[in-house]
């Protein structure tokens, strides 16, 4: 095994009381700070822009976006895939790393799960808006409707509804179950009657009984076990939205695992984007240590390489297939009208992450922050390239066209960042951003191991 000195995953010197205080104080006693207020204000303004863009879209119809035939899927589906991919890291951290006994996950799982929820919420809006008539979204659900119709089960778009719906529900349950003991802590530490009641209701009367803990623990592990294949399935199903169509550039069997890897890749980039400022701002360096950043970076590197392998396989197979449409598509991506986007994604997703090989870079928060941002841009661009370049050249040259996002496209995309950030800012103010009960357990174990 590696003989390198292991960075600690929680700084020494903490006990139950100090862990509890440090985490709950962020919510309960810390006054609203100018930094939080400023950030929230910006996020909220962006959210208002999002609402404005959506209201206009609903009023006018999706023609305000740049989509048309043949590029019927533009920003909306790109954003959808991007956001839902970001969500994956949360589940990966909270579920898979739990099953793998990776205890460094403890201090980041809560906010990573929150990130999942908010990202899925952002993601969910886009296919709904793209329906054209979002108000009849319930037609996607199987119920004995007045049409006598059922959803078309052979359509990946219906699979998507179930996959994303299940993902959101299970993530929410998983998150809430983990929160219940912490809500009880908040209830017991809150000073005002109002907060006590709010947290008290949400805590469901949790009293920390040993029997309860036992069932809680089993249920939590089971939920983790259930969430694990869900991580694989959700982005796989999203990928089949593309892959089961016979559009060159979409119809590729590697799409499911390749999308999953890309999802975790961009998700960890988002984790870092959030964790690095949060730990600094709230002085949580003792809980979110360099070790966490480094491990996340390693996951990013590994998944980045998988994504790179996907690009390679696609390129090789299109050549090997000897199919003129496949070959044309690949060349068109590289050298066609969208070539800058393609090379941007290659730079951001393949070249930039290689910096993580260097220990000096992967232990440097600022450096990682930049890399993470670039990866997020790269992964958005990747989905953009997949969606747009595959569509803009049809089999028939008469149907060729060029797609550009309109300002409404851009407003919805940037506005969705505002939605995400607003939810996240609120989350930081009202809920413990780190699992207190798990941290207590961890601190106790580390103290015992050290003794």
């Amino acid at each position: 095994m590696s003989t390198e000195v292991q960075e600690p995953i929680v700084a020494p010197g903490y006990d139950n009381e100090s862990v509890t205080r440090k985490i709950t104080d962020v919510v309960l006693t810390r006054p609203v700070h100018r930094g939080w207020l400023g950030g929230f204000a910006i996020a909220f303004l962006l959210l208002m822009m999002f609402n404005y863009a959506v209201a206009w879209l609903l009023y006018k119809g999706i023609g305000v976006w740049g989509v048309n035939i043949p590029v019927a899927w533009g920003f909306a589906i790109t954003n959808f895939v991007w956001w839902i991919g970001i969500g994956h890291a949360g589940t990966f951290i909270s579920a898979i790393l739990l099953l793998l006994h990776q205890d460094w996950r403890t201090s980041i799982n809560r906010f990573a799960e929150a990130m999942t929820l908010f990202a899925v919420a952002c993601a969910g809006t886009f296919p709904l808006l793209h329906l054209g008539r979002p108000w009849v979204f319930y037609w996607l659900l199987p119920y004995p409707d007045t049409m006598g119709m059922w959803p078309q089960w052979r359509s990946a778009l219906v699979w998507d509804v179930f996959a994303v719906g299940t993902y959101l529900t299970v993530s929410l349950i998983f998150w809430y179950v983990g929160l219940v003991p912490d809500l009880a802590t908040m209830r017991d530490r809150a000073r005002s009657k109002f907060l006590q009641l709010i947290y008290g209701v949400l805590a469901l009367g949790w009293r920390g009984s040993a029997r309860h803990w036992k069932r809680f623990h089993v249920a939590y592990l089971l939920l983790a076990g259930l969430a694990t294949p869900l991580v694989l399935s959700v982005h796989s199903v999203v990928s089949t939205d593309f892959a089961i169509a016979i559009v060159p550039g979409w119809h590729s069997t590697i799409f499911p695992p390749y999308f999953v890897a890309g999802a975790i890749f961009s998700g960890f980039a988002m984790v870092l984007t959030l964790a690095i400022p949060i730990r600094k701002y709230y002085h949580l360096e003792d809980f979110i240590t360099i070790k966490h950043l480094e491990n996340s970076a390693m996951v990013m590197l590994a998944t980045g390489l998988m994504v790179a392998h996907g690009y390679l396989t696609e390129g090789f197979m299109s050549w090997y297939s000897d199919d003129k449409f496949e070959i044309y598509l690949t060349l068109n991506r590289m050298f066609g009208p969208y070539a800058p986007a393609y090379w941007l994604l290659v730079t951001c997703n393949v070249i930039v992450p290689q910096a993580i090989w260097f220990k000096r870079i992967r232990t440097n928060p600022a450096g990682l922050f930049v890399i993470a941002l670039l990866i997020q841009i790269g992964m958005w661009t990747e989905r953009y390239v997949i969606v747009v370049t595959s569509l803009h050249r049809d089999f028939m040259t008469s149907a060729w066209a060029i797609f550009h996002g309109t300002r409404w496209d851009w407003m919805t995309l940037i506005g969705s960042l505002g939605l995400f950030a607003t939810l996240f800012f609120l989350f930081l103010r009202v809920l413990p951003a780190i699992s207190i009960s798990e941290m207590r357990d961890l601190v106790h174990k580390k103290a015992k191991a050290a003794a």
Partner: protein
Amino acid sequence: MRANPDRPAVRPYRASRAHMNNQSPTTDHQSPALHGVMAEFTQPEQLLSAAQRAYAAGYRKLDAYTPYSVEGLAEAIGFCKTRVPLVTLIGGIIGALTAYVMQWYSAARDYPLNVGGRPLHSWPAFVPITFELTVLFAALAAFIGMLWMNGLPRPYHPVFNAPEFKLASQTRFFLCIEANDPRFNIDEARQFLQGLNPINVSEVEK
């Protein structure tokens, strides 16, 4: 009331009102006003050994309250098997059957529709949703089953009457011998718990 870490660790014994009202709690251990006797510890190991000793002493209606999951504690108070996995499994099976039967019925029976020449009973296409609903139902079953078996939500519970019980969700570890234990005798129980070296023993009214 906010927990104060600087507060002295031991507080004087404070008789509950229930005890004062009832002249002979020792003879009437079925007293409806008494939930049990509660001891408070600072370390999980202390609680664990206290629980084991209480169980060994023959107490069965025991419960322990901790701010985090302490390994082996549930077993120490005689709670070994939980049916949460079974419920989850049943939920998963129901989910899988629901999903598959729903798809088969609607696509192959109720509205057979030829789409692209695919068979009406397109099992490969039915797999994703079957999987998703299996997970969804199993997760819901685990969640609801866990809450149900734990008797939650239950905002009011007698143990919250115990002094300092707010710390059970923060720093302290509690052991409660409940009054409905057939062996329960308030004085004995109090004496027994005092012998375990707690920082505090109190009676908990209902």
